[in-house]
C-alpha cells in the first residue's frame, strides 16, 4: 500500500495485542488455528502503589488490596536487593537481520538485494564474522559489542518457521512452538521463582501486559511510565504554581448522590492528586521526571521508559523480569531503508544509554537484556524496495555479564537459505531461554520450557 508499509496482517496483529482478542470482537481471521495471545484470560485490577508512586495494573491477583500490594513490594524489596533481572525487548514486525547485520562479504548479497544492499563502507565491520557489517543505525550497539557488553545471535529462529507475525511472535512469547500455550515463558519462570504477593516481580513496561509475562500462579504488573505526571499551567509560576497542584486535588472529593458521573469525575481527580503526590519521588518542582542519572538517553518515550526502569531498579524495587516493546515498526514490505534506520537507531542508542546507566548505578552485574523480533526477512528483496516475511533473524543479549561476542554462526546466503529462500537458524531461541533460565536464574528449565530436554545450552552469562 502506498501509505502503509506494513502488511495488513501485521496491522491486525497490532490491534490484537491491544486487547482486541480479549474482547473477542471483530477478530479478523489472520490464519486458521490462530493462537489466542498468552495471558488474555488473566484477571486484572489497577492500583495506585504508594511505594512506587504510580498506577499499576496488576494481573492475576484478584484478591489484592492496595495496601497489601505496597506491603508486599516493601517486603520483597527488603528480602532481596541483589536479585538478578532479565529485561526482554520485542522489536515488532520482524526486522530485517540482513540489513541490521548485513553480509556485505557474502557473494550473493548484492544479487539478492539489488536496491537495498548496503556498501562495505556504510557501517562498521562486525568483529565476530568478517562477512558481516553493522547497519549504520546500530553503531551504538557495535560499540557495546566492542566493549564486550553484547552477544550477537546472527541467525536465531526455530525449526519449521511460521511466517505469520502472530503465530511466530506467540512462539517466542510462550517459549514453545505451541499455539495452545497460554502462559508466557517469563510468566512460568515467575510461577517457579516468584512470590505470591509481589506484583512488581514481572513488570510489563507497556500499556498492556506483554504476553511473555503471563503467569498461572503469581501476580505481575504493567506500568506505562514511572515519570511524566505533572500539573502545570501556562504563565503560572512561583507560589500560584505550587498551590495550583494542591488546588487541582481539591476538585476531588465532590460527592453528589444523585449524580454518579459527576461524582466519578471528581473521584478521578482525587486519584490523580494522590498519584501526583506519590510520584513526587521521581518528579521535580518543574513537573518533569528526574531519574537522577548521568546517562544520556535519547529524548523519546522508549528512552524515558528505560531511564525509569534503571531508576526503579536502583531504588530497590523487587523486579525480576521485565518486558517491553521497542520503538519502530519493522514490517518493511516497502520502502524499507528509512523505516528500518529510524527505529533501529533509537533502539540502539536507548539501549546503549540504559547499559551505561546501569553501569554507573553499579547495577550492571544484575541485569541482562534480550532483544528479539518475531522473525527475520526474506533474503531476496521484493519489487517495492522492501522485504517480505522470512525465518531466522538476528537477536542480541546485552549486559555486563555476557560471555560471548557471538553465539551461533551466520550460515551464508548460498547454503544458509531454506527452500523458501529464508535464512536458516543456527541458534534456537528456546536454547537461549533455557540457558538463561539455568545460568542466570538458576532454575531447572525443564519446569518451564516444554522442549528443554531436546535443546542445546550455551554459556551465555
Amino acid at each position: 500500500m502506498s501509505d502503509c508499509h506494513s502488511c495488513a496482517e501485521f496491522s491486525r496483529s497490532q490491534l490484537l495485542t491491544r486487547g482486541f482478542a480479549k474482547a473477542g470482537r471483530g477478530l479478523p481471521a489472520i490464519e486458521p488455528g490462530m493462537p489466542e495471545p498468552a495471558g488474555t484470560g488473566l484477571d486484572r485490577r489497577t492500583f495506585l502503589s504508594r511505594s512506587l508512586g504510580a498506577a499499576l495494573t496488576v494481573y492475576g491477583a484478584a484478591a489484592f488490596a492496595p495496601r497489601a500490594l505496597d506491603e508486599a513490594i516493601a517486603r520483597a524489596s527488603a528480602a532481596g536487593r541483589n536479585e538478578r533481572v532479565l529485561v526482554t525487548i520485542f522489536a515488532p514486525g520482524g526486522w530485517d537481520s540482513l540489513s541490521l547485520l548485513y553480509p556485505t562479504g557474502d557473494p550473493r548479497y548484492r544479487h539478492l538485494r539489488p536496491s537495498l544492499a548496503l556498501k562495505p563502507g556504510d557501517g562498521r565491520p562486525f568483529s565476530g564474522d568478517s562477512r558481516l557489517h553493522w547497519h549504520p543505525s546500530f553503531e551504538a550497539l557495535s560499540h557495546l559489542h566492542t566493549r564486550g557488553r553484547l552477544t550477537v545471535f546472527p541467525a536465531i529462529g526455530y525449526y519449521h518457521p511460521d511466517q505469520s507475525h502472530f503465530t511466530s511472535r506467540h512462539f517466542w512469547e510462550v517459549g514453545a512452538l505451541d499455539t495452545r500455550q497460554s502462559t508466557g515463558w517469563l510468566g512460568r519462570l515467575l510461577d517457579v521463582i516468584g512470590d505470591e504477593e509481589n506484583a512488581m516481580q514481572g513488570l510489563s513496561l507497556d500499556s498492556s501486559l506483554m504476553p511473555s509475562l503471563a503467569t498461572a500462579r503469581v501476580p505481575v504488573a504493567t506500568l506505562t511510565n514511572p515519570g511524566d505526571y505533572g500539573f502545570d499551567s501556562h504563565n503560572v509560576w512561583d507560589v500560584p504554581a505550587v498551590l495550583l497542584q494542591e488546588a487541582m486535588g481539591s476538585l476531588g472529593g465532590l460527592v453528589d448522590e444523585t449524580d454518579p458521573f459527576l461524582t466519578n469525575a471528581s473521584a478521578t481527580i482525587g486519584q490523580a492528586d494522590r498519584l501526583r503526590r506519590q510520584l513526587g519521588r521521581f518528579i521535580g518542582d518543574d513537573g518533569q521526571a528526574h531519574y537522577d542519572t548521568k546517562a544520556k538517553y535519547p529524548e523519546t518515550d522508549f528512552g524515558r521508559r528505560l531511564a525509569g526502569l534503571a531508576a526503579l531498579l536502583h531504588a530497590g524495587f523487587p523486579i525480576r523480569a521485565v518486558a517491553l516493546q521497542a520503538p519502530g515498526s519493522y514490517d518493511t514490505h516497502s520502502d524499507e531503508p528509512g523505516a528500518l534506520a529510524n527505529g533501529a537507531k533509537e533502539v540502539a542508542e536507548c539501549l546503549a544509554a540504559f547499559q551505561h546507566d546501569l553501569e554507573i548505578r553499579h547495577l550492571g552485574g544484575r541485569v541482562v537484556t534480550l532483544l528479539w523480533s518475531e522473525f527475520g526477512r526474506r533474503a531476496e528483496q521484493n519489487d517495492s524496495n522492501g522485504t517480505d516475511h522470512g525465518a531466522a533473524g538476528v537477536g542480541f543479549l546485552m549486559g555486563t555479564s555476557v560471555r560471548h561476542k557471538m553465539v551461533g554462526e551466520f550460515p551464508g546466503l548460498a547454503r544458509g537459505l531454506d527452500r523458501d529462500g529464508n535464512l536458516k537458524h543456527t541458534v534456537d531461541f528456546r536454547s537461549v531461554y533455557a540457558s538463561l533460565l539455568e545460568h542466570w536464574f538458576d532454575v531447572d528449565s525443564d519446569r518451564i520450557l516444554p522442549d528443554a530436554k531436546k535443546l542445546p545450552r550455551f554459556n551465555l552469562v
Partner: protein
Amino acid sequence: MPLAVYKGPFGPEQAERLLWRAGFGPRGGEDAALAKKGLHRAVDSLVRPHGADRLVGKPPRVDGHGIAPKDAFGHDHLWWLDRMVRTSQPLVERMTLVWHDWFATSNETVGSQRIMLQQNDLFRTIGLGSFEGLAMRVTINPAMLLYLNGLNSLKGAPNENYARELMELFTIGVDNGYTERDVREQARALTGWTADYQNGYGWTRFRYKHENHDDAMKVVFGKIGAFNWKAAVKLCINHPKHAAFFVNKLWGYFIPVPPDDETRAALETLYVHSGHNIRPVVSAILKHPLLYEGPRMTKSPVVYTAGLLRRRGDRISTEDWIWLDAMAGQQLFYPPNVSGWNDDRWLDTSRFRARWLIARRALEKHAFNPEHASPKDRPPSDPAQLVDKAIAFWGGVRLTDHTRKALVAYAEKTMAAAIADENRQRAFPMMTYNALRHLVAVSPEMLTA
C-alpha cells in the same frame, strides 16, 4: 403508548445540556438563544436544521498552512474536530460521531485517510435518515469492506467477519437470536465485493462482481432464499430483536441511564412505524425528561476539546490536538476496535492528565503573561471576584458549591502570599486568574454535562 416528554422549565441551563448531548456545547450566547425557542422548537431546530451547514469562524491553520485531511497524518482528526467546533448543525456532526462509534472502523487497518473520510461523509449525509439505508450503505462502504474483510469475500471462501459484526454489534446484539449457522449463511449472502489496488493510489473501483457472489440458497433466521447483500441487511433490520437493540443502543449515546420498559417499548413502536427512521427516535430521546432531570454524562475527549474551542470561538491552530485527544483516549478514525470506544473508560488518572493538558493548550493563547500585561488587563485581586471572572470566561458554567469553594480557597491563598510584596501583588492576580480558568476547565462540572 405515550412517550414521556420533559415538562419542566426550559432555560439556558437545559438548553446548554441539550447542546452538549446533541452537539459540542454552546458557542457564546447559543444556549440562551436556544432556550428562547422552548423545548420542542429547540429540538426541532437540531434534528431538522435548515439548509446547508455553515462553518462559522476561521478555518484551521497549522504552522502557517491549511490542513491536508486526506494526506497528512492526524489531519483527518483536525479536520473533523474543526467541523465540531464551527458547525451550525451540531446534531448532524454529533450523529456522524455516533455512527463512527456504532459502525466503528479504524484507519489502523484501512490505511487510507481518503477512504476513511469518504465513510465519514456517508455518516454525515444520511445519519438522520433510514437506518436500513444507512446499514446498507455501510455494508458496501469501502472502509468497512476493508476493515471487516468484506472485500474479496468470495463464493466458496466467504469471510465471516462482517456477517458476525453486522448481527452482533450493528443490528441485533450478541447472543440475541441468531446462530453460528446464521453467521456462516449471512457470510455467503454477503460475498461478491471486490476492488482494484492501484500502486501509488491505493484501493479503488470498489464494485460488486456477480461471479464472486454465492447465489445458491441460504437459510438465515429460519428463512430460505438466494439472499444477497441487500437481503442480508434487510433480514437483520426485520429481525424481531432489532428494534429493541437499536433503541437501547441509540439511547445510550444521549442518556447514561437505561430507559424504562414503557419508554423503550414506545420508542420501538415509533421506530418501526416510521419505517426504521433515525430522526424521530433521536427527537424523542432529546425531549425525554431523563435527559434534563437525570445524571450528567462524561464528555468524550473530542466532545470536550471541541467544546472548549467552540465556547471560545477559537480556530484549530495546532496539531497538538491529535496527540492530546489520543492521550485522552479518542483519536478520531482510530477507534480501539470494532465495538467502538468504551464510554465507561473516559476518565482515569492518565486520561485526566490528558484533559488537563487539553485545557492547558486551549488556554495557552488566552493566558496573560504577568510580565508583559498592560494595566487594563489586570484582573481584580479580590478572590471571589477572580473566581467569578474565571467562571464567566467559560460562559458562566454552573459550578457546585464544593468546586466554587475550592477555587476561592486557592485564590485566597495566592492573594495572601502576595501581601506586602509589590511585585507579587502585580503578578499574582494575573497568574491566579490564569490558573483559575484552568481549574474551571478541568472541574468535574466541565468534564461532564
